[in-house]
C-alpha cells in the first residue's frame, strides 16, 4: 500500500464537503434517531464503498466552516419554526434554550407551551414588530435623561429605555461578557431574552457580527457531535459521531482543514495510540513527576517503614524518619537498633532487616526507573520532532537555493517536505506509544506491540539521520529518502492498526483503571 494513500484517506473525508454542499449536514438531521439507534459502534465506517479502505484507527468526520455552521443553524431554526408556528427569532431562542435538541423542544412545547415560552423569556406573543419610538414624558430609568426627542425602545415586556442605554447595555454584554443567547431585558428583574431581531435593530455592524459569531459558538458548544478545532485562530468546527463512552475503545483523531490533527475526544493534539483516559493520567503524572523524579532517583531513598522519600543532606547514617519516627541506617537500610554500639559505622550488611529493606527499596526504585524509562523516551520524541522541524526549515532554504544552482524543479524537492511530515507524524505517534506502554500490563499482545514500536523507531531514526546530511548530499539521497519515508509511514500504519484493533476488541490490559 502506498503511504501517500494513507494520508489521503484521512483527508478525503473533509474534502467532500466542499462540493457536497448540503449533504454532509444530513448526518445532523437525524440527530435524535441517532441517539436511539446508536449501539456503540457509531464510529464504524458506513461508506466503505465510497472512500479507499479506511484504517481501523481512523474515524469518520467532517470539517465545517463558519458559513456552513450558520447555514445549518438557520435551516434547523426554519424547520422548527414551521412546526411550532413561531417566528424564526423566537425559535432560535427556544432552540438555544433546548441545547438544540429539536425533539425534546417540540415535545415540551406541545405539552406546556406557556411554561416553555415563559422559561426562555418569550411571553406568549412575541410576534409584534419591533420599532424605535419617541415617547412623550419619558424618563430613561438608566441614564435619567428626559429630552423630548429621545429615541426609546422596549420589547414586549414593556421595559422601555432610551436607545443609547439599550445599545450600551447590549454592547457591554456582548463585548465584555461574551454573552449572546442569554442576554436578558435590562429591566429590573425581567427575565425576557433579547431576541436577535431586536438586537439587529439596535446595534451597529461590528457588534452585530460579534453577536452572531457568539451565537454560532454556542451552537457548536451545545452540540455533542460538533467541536471547534483548538488551533489558534482556526475558524473550523469538526463534526464527528464518536461519543464520550466510546473513548475507551477508540482514539478519534481528526484532521482539521487548517492542518491541525487533534483528538475529537479531548481536543488535545493527536495522541494515538493512547486512549484519552491514559493521556490524561500520563500528562498529570508528568506534570507532577518528571523533573523531580530524576532528582529523587539520584538523591534520595525511601524510609523502609512508611515509604516517605528522604534526602540525606549531610550528617551521620543514623536516620530518623520525620514522618513515622522509624530509625534506620542510611547505608544498609536496616533497623538502627540492630547496629548495637557500632555507631556511625555500618558494617552490618548481612542483617536480614537490612536485606529486606533494600529489597523494598529496590522495588520502589524500579518503579521510578520504569517511569523514567518511558518518560525520557516520550520527551525525547517530543524534542526530536522539534529539532527535525528546525532542520527542515533550514533545509528548505537551501533547497530553494539548490533549485536555482542545481536546476532542480520545485516538484523535485518536495520529497523533503513529505519526509519532514512523515517524521513529525511518526514521532508524535512514537511519543504516545511510550505513555501507552507505561500503563500496559504485559500479555501476549504486548510483545507484538513492542516489536512494532521498535521497528517504527528504527525507521524514524534512519530517516531522521538523513535529514542531517549536508545539502549537496541531499539531492543524491532523494530515492533513498523517498523509500525511507514510505517505510516509516507503513510502519506507523501497522502499529496503529494493531493497537486500534485490540483496543476496540478490548484486548489490552492496563495496570490502571481507565476512568
Amino acid at each position, binding site marked *: 500500500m502506498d503511504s501517500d494513500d494513507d494520508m489521503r484517506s484521512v483527508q478525503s473525508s473533509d474534502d467532500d464537503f466542499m462540493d457536497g454542499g448540503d449533504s454532509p449536514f444530513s448526518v445532523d438531521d437525524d440527530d435524535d434517531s441517532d441517539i436511539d439507534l446508536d449501539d456503540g459502534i457509531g464510529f464504524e465506517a458506513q461508506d466503505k464503498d465510497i472512500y479507499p479502505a479506511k484504517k481501523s484507527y481512523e474515524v469518520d468526520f467532517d470539517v465545517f466552516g463558519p458559513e456552513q455552521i450558520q447555514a445549518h443553524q438557520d435551516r434547523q431554526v426554519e424547520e422548527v419554526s414551521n412546526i411550532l408556528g413561531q417566528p424564526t427569532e423566537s425559535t432560535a431562542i427556544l432552540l438555544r434554550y433546548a441545547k438544540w435538541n429539536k425533539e425534546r423542544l417540540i415535545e415540551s412545547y406541545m405539552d406546556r407551551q406557556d411554561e416553555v415560552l415563559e422559561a426562555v423569556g418569550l411571553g406568549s406573543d412575541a410576534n409584534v414588530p419591533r420599532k424605535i419610538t419617541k415617547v412623550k414624558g419619558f424618563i430613561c430609568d*438608566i*441614564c*435619567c*435623561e428626559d429630552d423630548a426627542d429621545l429615541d426609546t425602545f422596549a420589547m414586549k415586556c414593556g421595559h422601555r429605555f432610551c436607545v443609547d*442605554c439599550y445599545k450600551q*447595555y447590549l454592547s*457591554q454584554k456582548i463585548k465584555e461578557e461574551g454573552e449572546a443567547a442569554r442576554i436578558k431585558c435590562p429591566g429590573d428583574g*425581567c427575565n425576557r431574552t433579547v431576541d436577535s431581531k431586536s438586537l439587529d435593530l439596535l446595534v451597529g455592524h461590528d457588534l452585530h457580527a460579534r453577536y452572531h459569531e457568539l451565537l454560532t459558538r454556542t451552537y457548536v458548544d451545545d452540540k455533542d457531535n460538533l467541536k471547534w478545532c483548538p488551533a489558534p485562530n482556526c475558524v473550523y468546527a469538526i463534526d464527528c459521531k464518536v461519543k464520550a463512552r466510546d473513548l475507551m475503545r477508540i482514539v478519534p483523531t481528526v484532521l482539521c482543514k487548517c492542518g491541525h490533527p487533534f483528538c475529537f475526544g479531548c481536543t488535545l493534539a493527536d495522541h494515538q495510540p493512547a486512549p484519552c483516559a491514559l493521556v490524561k493520567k500520563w500528562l498529570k503524572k508528568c506534570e507532577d513527576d518528571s523533573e523531580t523524579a530524576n532528582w529523587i532517583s539520584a538523591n534520595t531513598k525511601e524510609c523502609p517503614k512508611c515509604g516517605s522519600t528522604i534526602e540525606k543532606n549531610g550528617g551521620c547514617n543514623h536516620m530518623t524518619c520525620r514522618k513515622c519516627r522509624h530509625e534506620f541506617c542510611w547505608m544498609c537500610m536496616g533497623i538502627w537498633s540492630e547496629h548495637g554500639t557500632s555507631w556511625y559505622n555500618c558494617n552490618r550488611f548481612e542483617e536480614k532487616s537490612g536485606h529486606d529493606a533494600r529489597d523494598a527499596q529496590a522495588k520502589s526504585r524500579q518503579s521510578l526507573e520504569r517511569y523514567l524509562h518511558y518518560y525520557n523516551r516520550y520527551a525525547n520524541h517530543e524534542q526530536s520532532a522539534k529539532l527535525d522541524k528546525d532542520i527542515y526549515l533550514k533545509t528548505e532554504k537551501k533547497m530553494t537555493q539548490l533549485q536555482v544552482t542545481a536546476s532542480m524543479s520545485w516538484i523535485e524537492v518536495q520529497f523533503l517536505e513529505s519526509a519532514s511530515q512523515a517524521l513529525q507524524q511518526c514521532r508524535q505517534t512514537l511519543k504516545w506509544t511510550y505513555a501507552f506502554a507505561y500503563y500496559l500490563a504485559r500479555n501476549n499482545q504486548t510483545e507484538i506491540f513492542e516489536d512494532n514500536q521498535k521497528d517504527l523507531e528504527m525507521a524514524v531514526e534512519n530517516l531522521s539521520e538523513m535529514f542531517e546530511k549536508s545539502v549537496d548530499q541531499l539531492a543524491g539521497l532523494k530515492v533513498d529518502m523517498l523509500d525511507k519515508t514510505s517505510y516509516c509511514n507503513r510502519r506507523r500504519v501497522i502499529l496503529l492498526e494493531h493497537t486500534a484493533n485490540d483496543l476496540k476488541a478490548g484486548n489490552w490490559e492496563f495496570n490502571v483503571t481507565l476512568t
Partner: protein
Amino acid sequence: MSGKKRIVKELGEITSSPPDGMRVRLVDESDVHIWEIFMDGPEQSVYSGGTFRLVLTLPKDYPFKPPILAFQTKIYHPNVSNDDKGSMCLGMLRSDEWKPPNKILAVLNMARNLLVEPNPDDAVETGIAEQYKSNRKEFEKTAKDWTKKYANAKK
C-alpha cells in the same frame, strides 16, 4: 456620559433623605465615583451598637456594571471577605445579576438586610457560614466580640 447625570441624581436623593441608620457622603468632593457610607448595625442584629464604614466604588461604566461595595471596618459575617478588602459579592452586586436600572439605594439596603439576616448559602467565608448554620451561638458570640472590638460598640 450617561452615568454622570444618573450618579448625581442618586447621590442627591440619598443625601437628602438617607436610608435608616446610614450616613452617606463622597470621600472626595470632586469624585462622584467613590462614596463613603457609615452604617449602624441594625438593632435586631448581632452587629447592633457598632458602626461600620463602607466604601462604594462606581465603575466608569456604571450603571452598566454593578457598583463595588466593601466593608472597611472588620466584620464577622459569612458574606463579607475576612481580609483587608472586606469585599462582598452576591446578589445584585454580581455582574450577571446586576441590571442597569438597579439603584445604589437598593444595594445599600441589601447590605443592611444582610446584617440582619446573613445568606450562608452564597458565602465568601465558608467557614463562618458553616458555623452560622451549625453553631449559631458561637457565631453570634464572635460577631458581637468583633463588633465591640472593631466597630466601637459600647455594650
